[in-house]
């Protein structure tokens, strides 16, 4: 694996952890716990997130990522984000990969 490829993998794993932490913050007392795995579905009918909860999750992830990496990242929710088929919000792992790509791109210009 190239040096840059390895870096993206490290970032992706860290971002995945930040997504789990953001999900923890959204868990409501007394309600069924939202599962935290790379395959956890974020968008669509089988998602445990209603639209408002998903908005809250995305903003919480964006803020955690910015705090962790120390710079403002470009908006996560772009035109692609709400299309169920190709959206980076399909699952925790696709979102982590998407954000890792943004971070790597911004770091390396």
């Amino acid at each position, binding site marked *: 694996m190239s040096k840059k490829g390895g870096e993206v993998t490290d970032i992706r794993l860290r971002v995945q952890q930040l997504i789990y932490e953001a999900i923890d913050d959204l868990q409501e007392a007394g309600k069924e716990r939202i599962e935290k795995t790379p395959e956890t579905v974020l968008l669509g009918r089988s998602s445990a997130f209603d639209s408002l909860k998903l908005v809250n999750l995305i903003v919480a992830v964006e803020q955690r990522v910015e705090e962790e990496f120390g710079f403002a*990242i470009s908006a996560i929710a772009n035109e692609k984000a709400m299309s169920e088929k190709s959206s980076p919000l399909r699952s925790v792992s696709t979102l982590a990969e998407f954000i890792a790509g943004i971070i790597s791109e911004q770091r390396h210009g």
Partner: protein
Amino acid sequence: MVNSAGIMLITGTRKGIGRYLVEHYVKKGNRVIGCSRQPTDLKLDGYEHFCLDVADEPRVKEVFFEIRKKYGHLDVLINNAGIASMNHILLTPVSTVTSIFNTNVIGTFIFCREAAKIMKKTGGRIVNFSTAATPLRLEGEAIYAASKAAVVSLTEILARELADFKITVNAVGPSPLKTDLTRGVPQDKMDRLINRQAIRRFAEFRDVSNVIDFFLKPESDFITGQIVYLGGITGS
């Protein structure tokens, strides 16, 4: 907001009404953050200034990141930055349209979005700027009025989208003020314009801050999606 000192962000603060609002709210004990494209000579305890173009998304996000790191919250956003260009549509280049919409609509949108991300935990108040030119359908101001009509729609819809976060979104629509925006308008045109108001005088800066003060009062937490025009002009 905002019983006592709050953190406020005001755009377009180098001169005119924006500068007045900085002085007004610093005097009330708030911590005010302002911005403009050019540096400011305004130095006040309780005021800090960023140089940016409000439509420059990456730069605006950087500034919000700084605000979040430094203060952790934001109570008030006042989207004052705006530009106008008065011309007949047959003589209006697309570059003017782009420039006006970038500042007035896209700038307002980016600031609302980024402010709401910070405000959503604790609630907040957003005040946008419309203009009397929109309900008066002023000839020669098609693009400016259209851009502010977009701000009206943005305000009304964001009021609904952000209500669950206890963020109110309102707008003030000044009638003519003596600022850079109206300096180039011929006197007879200004007179005709003012004669269409119920109360026939130029607006003062204090008329604008009075409406904003109302939107920011703690008791105004049930006031959202409202556009308040000055001088007796009514929206439609």
